[in-house]
């Protein structure tokens, strides 16, 4: 009379019932009740965004749903240049609390105030590079209570700067790490001279000389390269010493936004500078974290 199917199913369930009954309190701390729980892993040395953040281990998957360390590195790479801009003291803390969250029993999100401070300080600079404040960092979704990450000493010491701020793409340190980070965060890079600079609405239009050498092709096509015109976004009035000197050769980086090419970085091609020479040599073997590796 008894179905054999039910008997065998019963035997399977009998095997696991005691385990189920002992775990009868439903623990649904993580979004999906079956996916692998996050693991505690060391922050790798080459996750440059989060070196020196103040802790040494992170959760993987992180709070941005990056599932592998390769994915974390690839996505974090384009944020590193923002750190160099020093637009807000809490920038690294905000970014790393999401990209490399602290290992706790439950996820600790950044405080809304921390997010808002960084957003207000950094989004004008991001806009200069053609980036809106991203959806993944929408501040409204972060907590306002005490169970969140804030800057350790929350004293907003704003130093009034006497000088007008330098155009973000022109405000660059002659340092190998900075240049390489910018290179990875840009879509293309070329060696050339400037022919003409003109104001156009809120931007500055930069016309390049015909003679160009490609350092990084990226998404650029050969026919586009010939008549390349770059825009310094929201850069009509900020100072940029590089654009004032048309006699020098420059390393120019950029990216395409809609149908415009934006200037994302400009360095003097200074062969007499030791740091620059070291960078150019390193550039030949340097590999940016690529998204192809993340998903295949």
């Amino acid at each position, binding site marked *: 009379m008894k179905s054999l199917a039910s008997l065998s199913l019963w035997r399977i369930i009998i095997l696991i019932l005691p385990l189920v009954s002992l775990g009868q309190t439903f623990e649904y701390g993580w979004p999906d009740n079956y996916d692998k729980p996050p693991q505690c892993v060391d922050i790798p040395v080459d996750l440059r965004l989060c070196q020196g953040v103040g802790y040494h281990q992170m959760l993987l998957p992180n709070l941005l749903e990056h599932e592998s360390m390769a994915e974390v590195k690839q996505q974090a790479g384009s944020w590193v240049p923002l750190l160099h801009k020093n637009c807000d003291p809490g920038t690294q803390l905000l970014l790393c609390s999401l990209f490399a969250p602290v290992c706790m029993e439950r996820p600790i999100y950044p405080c809304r105030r921390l997010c808002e401070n960084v957003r207000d300080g950094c989004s004008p600079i991001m806009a200069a590079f053609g980036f809106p404040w991203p959806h993944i960092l929408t501040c409204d979704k972060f907590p306002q209570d005490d169970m969140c*990450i804030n800057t350790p000493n929350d004293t907003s010491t704003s130093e009034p700067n006497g000088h007008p701020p330098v155009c973000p793409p022109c405000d660059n340190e002659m340092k190998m790490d900075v240049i390489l980070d910018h290179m990875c965060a840009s879509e293309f890079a070329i060696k050339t001279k400037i022919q003409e600079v003109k104001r156009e609405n809120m931007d500055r239009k930069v016309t390049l000389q015909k003679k160009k050498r490609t350092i990084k092709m990226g998404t650029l096509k050969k026919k586009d390269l010939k008549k390349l015109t770059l825009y310094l976004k929201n850069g009509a009035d900020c100072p940029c010493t590089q654009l004032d000197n048309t006699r020098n050769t420059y390393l120019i980086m950029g990216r395409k936004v809609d149908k415009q090419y934006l200037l994302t970085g400009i360095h003097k091609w200074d062969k007499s500078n030791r740091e620059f020479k070291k960078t150019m040599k390193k550039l030949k073997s340097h590999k940016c974290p690529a998204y192809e590796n993340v998903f295949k």
Partner: protein
Amino acid sequence: MTIPLSRTQLALFFILLCPVNIIGLWWAVGSPLVMDPNSICRKTKRLAGKQAELCQTQPEIVNEVAKGAKLGVRECQYQFRFRRWNCTSQNKYFGKILQQDIRETAFVYAITAAGVTHAVTQACSMGELLQCGCEATRSRGPPPRLASMGPTEGVKWEWGGCGDDVEFGYEKSKQFMDARRRKGKSDIRTLIDLHNNEAGRLAVKNYMRTECKCHGLSGSCTLRTCWKKMPHFREVGDRLLERFNGASKVMGGNDGKTLIPVGQNIKPPDKQDLIYSAESPDFCLPNRKTGSLGTRGRTCNSTALDVSGCDLLCCERGHRDETVVLEENCLCRFHWCCVVQCKKCLVRKELSLCQ
């Protein structure tokens, strides 16, 4: 001279004398062994032919089958937590449910088959099974336009990531759960069980969704990768509970191989519907034969009018109110870096318990 008992005799003695919950503890202590595929296969000696074959050739898949069954039972307990029958995990009472053909039986079969499908497919995506991996999606067309992704102009997308190979999980669930099917024999109960297993699997397979990730510069959506993903298992449980509430009563056809709905002008159940052939008991009082534990002592909601309300849950036997004082963490604060400090608060909770 006393002859010492053998280990087997001692274990048998222990099992026979101890109540069920201690047996549960005993199992828990040996939980690594329980989850060992060979141990599972050894403990289920009288598996049907196909199941035995799977145990011999693919023991690691049987491991995932066990995880899937556990997932199914846990979801069952969640979905029925406010009902008279709450998917109790007591062995003998639960076994009685499985030996009937009531609605509750249908749900258990379906949620277990769904759990197995989900767990095996998940193991594929996690790279835990050598027999399978990510589903290849290169040959598919573009993903459906997602409104939340904003304007698609200029957005590069591609199929990639680790798509869930639900076909593999589906097939393994079928092989293991429907092992009886291979023999060709059929009785009404078997037909009902097979139907409900399939309904459970389809609750996963027919609801695959497209998940996309933006991985352009600075988190922008200029570059996007999409892949197929299983529904969350909570979603599967919700769907099957709906099917449970709308389950169809059937009886055997004259040829002994088909099922026909009971009642005039009733639409025949489709593949995703749950079916049953016997009416459920009321589950009010303890009854070993029907697998009912009764509702005495259950927590109920004195202000609700649905199944979790005291009138319905307690079968109108009344309830009593109790106040318990619990100590809870409160005013938690995260300190840099990195500790969470909480204060302890006393919290009074009002409970209503069925008489």
